[in-house]
C-alpha cells in the first residue's frame, strides 16, 4: 500500500501515516507493506505511480494507491505556512511568499506576455464550479458567475478568492493489479496506458520561463510517447487547477494548444463538459476540493468513473482515454497518467 500525504505532521501532528492507515484499514495484522509518499500537492499522483511501478515490475501483485489530507484542524495562518513548505523555505517562504502569491507571480508574468483577460481567467473557475455542481462528492456544488470571481476579495494580486482552490479534508484510493488478474476482482477495470513523472527547480524564480511548467511539458510528452498516443486521442483531462492560472498553464504545457491560447479555449467552451476537450469534469481542485495528498488519487478516480460511464450528470459521452496531471509546489514535481477504458 502506498499513501500519498503532504503534511499530516503539521496538520494533525501525526507522522507514520502509512502504518496508521494500514492499521485502521485492517492490513497491519496481515503485515501488508505500507509506504508514505510525499511530494507536496503531487503526493497522490506519485503514490499512484509507485503502485503502478510496483505492479509493473512484478515486485508486488495487488497494491492500494491511496491519498489523504486532513487540513481543517488548523487555522488559515498555519495552513498557509504549511503549504508554503512546498516551495523553498529558505528563499521563498522566508521572505513572505505564499502559494497564492507564487501563482499570482505566474499570472502577472503570463498576463504581461500573453493576451489573457481577467474574464477568461474567471471563466476557468466558473466552468469548474459548473462541473462541481454535477459531482455529488465535490466540496462546492454551487454554480458561480464571472461576477462572483471578479467581485471576490483579492488574495494575491491579480488572484482573487475564487481563483484559488480551497482548504479541504479528503481521501481517495484505487487498487492497482496486473491486467491478467484484474478480472478476478471486477469486470469494470480500466487500463493504465502511461505513467510519467518529471522534476524542475523547487523555486519559481529559478525556472527557465516563469509562465511555463517545464516539468509538465516533460511529463506530458513522456506519457504520450510511452503510450504511443497523440493529443487528439485524449477524450478528457483532469489538470492541477490549484489556481485558475494553473489550469491555463497546464492545458498549454501539456501541449493541447499553443502558449497563450488556453484563455480563448476556455472562453469558447472547448474545455467545458460538452466541449471538444473537457477539462476537470470533477470540478477540479477549485470546486471538488484540494486535500493536497489526496488530489492526485481523486483525479485518477474521476477518470476511472468517466471511462466506466459512471459519471452521472457530468459524464463525457463515449470517453475512452483520459489523462491526469498532478503538480507538486509551483511545478517542481509533476505526475501525468493516461488511463484507457477496456
Amino acid at each position, binding site marked *: 500500500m502506498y499513501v500519498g500525504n503532504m503534511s499530516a505532521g503539521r496538520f494533525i501532528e501525526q507522522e507514520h501515516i502509512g502504518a496508521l492507515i494500514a492499521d485502521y484499514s485492517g492490513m497491519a495484522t496481515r503485515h501488508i507493506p505500507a509506504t508514505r509518499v510525499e511530494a507536496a500537492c503531487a503526493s497522490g499522483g506519485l503514490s499512484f505511480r509507485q503502485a503502478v511501478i510496483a505492479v509493473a515490475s512484478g515486485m508486488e501483485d495487488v497494491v492500494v494507491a491511496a491519498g489523504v489530507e486532513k487540513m481543517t484542524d488548523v487555522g488559515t*495562518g498555519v495552513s498557509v505556512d504549511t503549504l508554503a513548505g512546498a516551495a523553498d523555505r*529558505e528563499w521563498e517562504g522566508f521572505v513572505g511568499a505564499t502559494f497564492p502569491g507564487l501563482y499570482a*507571480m505566474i499570472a*502577472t508574468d503570463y498576463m504581461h506576455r500573453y493576451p489573457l483577460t481577467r474574464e477568461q481567467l474567471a471563466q476557468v473557475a466558473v466552468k469548474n464550479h459548473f462541473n462541481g455542481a454535477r459531482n455529488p462528492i465535490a466540496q462546492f456544488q454551487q454554480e458561480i458567475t464571472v461576477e462572483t470571481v471578479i467581485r471576490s476579495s483579492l488574495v*494575491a494580486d491579480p488572484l482573487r478568492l475564487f481563483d484559488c482552490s480551497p482548504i479541504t479534508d479528503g481521501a481517495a484510493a484505487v487498487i492497482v493489479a496486473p491486467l491478467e488478474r484484474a478480472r478476478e476482482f471486477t469486470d469494470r477495470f480500466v487500463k493504465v496506458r502511461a505513467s510519467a513523472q518529471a522534476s524542475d527547480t523547487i523555486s519559481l524564480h529559478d525556472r527557465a520561463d516563469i509562465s511555463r511548467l517545464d516539468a509538465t511539458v516533460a511529463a506530458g510528452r513522456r506519457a504520450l510517447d510511452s503510450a504511443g498516443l497523440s493529443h487528439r486521442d485524449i477524450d478528457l483531462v483532469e489538470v492541477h487547477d490549484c489556481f485558475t492560472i494553473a489550469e491555463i498553464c497546464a492545458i498549454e504545457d501539456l501541449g493541447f494548444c499553443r502558449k497563450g491560447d488556453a484563455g480563448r479555449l476556455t472562453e469558447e467552451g472547448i474545455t467545458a463538459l460538452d466541449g471538444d476537450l473537457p477539462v476537470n469534469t470533477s470540478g477540479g481542485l477549485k470546486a471538488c476540493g484540494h486535500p493536497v495528498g489526496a488530489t492526485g488519487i481523486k483525479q485518477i478516480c474521476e477518470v476511472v468513473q468517466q471511462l466506466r460511464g459512471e459519471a452521472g450528470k457530468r459524464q463525457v459521452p463515449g470517453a475512452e482515454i483520459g489523462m491526469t496531471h498532478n503538480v507538486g509546489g509551483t511545478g517542481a514535481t509533476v505526475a501525468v497518467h493516461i488511463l484507457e477504458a477496456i
Partner: protein
Amino acid sequence: MSVARFWRKIPQRYNLIGTRCGTCGTYFFPPRSFCPSCRREGKIEEYRFPGKGKVVTHTVIRSASEQFERQTPYVLAIIQLDEGPRFTAQVVAEPGEIQVGTPVRPVFRRISADGESGVIHYGTKFVPVR
C-alpha cells in the same frame, strides 16, 4: 525559523553573498555549491552582488502566514540581478507602484519576527530606483 537556521544564512541575507561558477561564468543567488551545468567540472567561488536589478514579476500579498499577517498588504517580486540570477524578495513600495521591468536596489530591512520576544529576522528587501 530556528536561530541556528537563520544565522547560517546571514552572509547571504544581509550582504547578498552568492556564488559564481569559474568554469562557465554563471552567477548564483541564492548561492549554489554545485553548478547544475558543469557538475563535477564546475568551480564554485564566492561572489558578492552589488544588488542592482529589475522586477521580473510581482504580486501584492493580502493573505499571509501568521508570521507575516501584520505586514499585509506587502509587495512581493521576483528580482533579476544585473549578473543574471533571479530570486524572490519583498519590495518596499505601495501596491501598484512597481511594474514588470522596474529597476530596483537593495536595502537592509526587518523581514519578520518570531512573536513578541522571539528572534527578529533581518534581510534584504528592494526599493524602486527613481
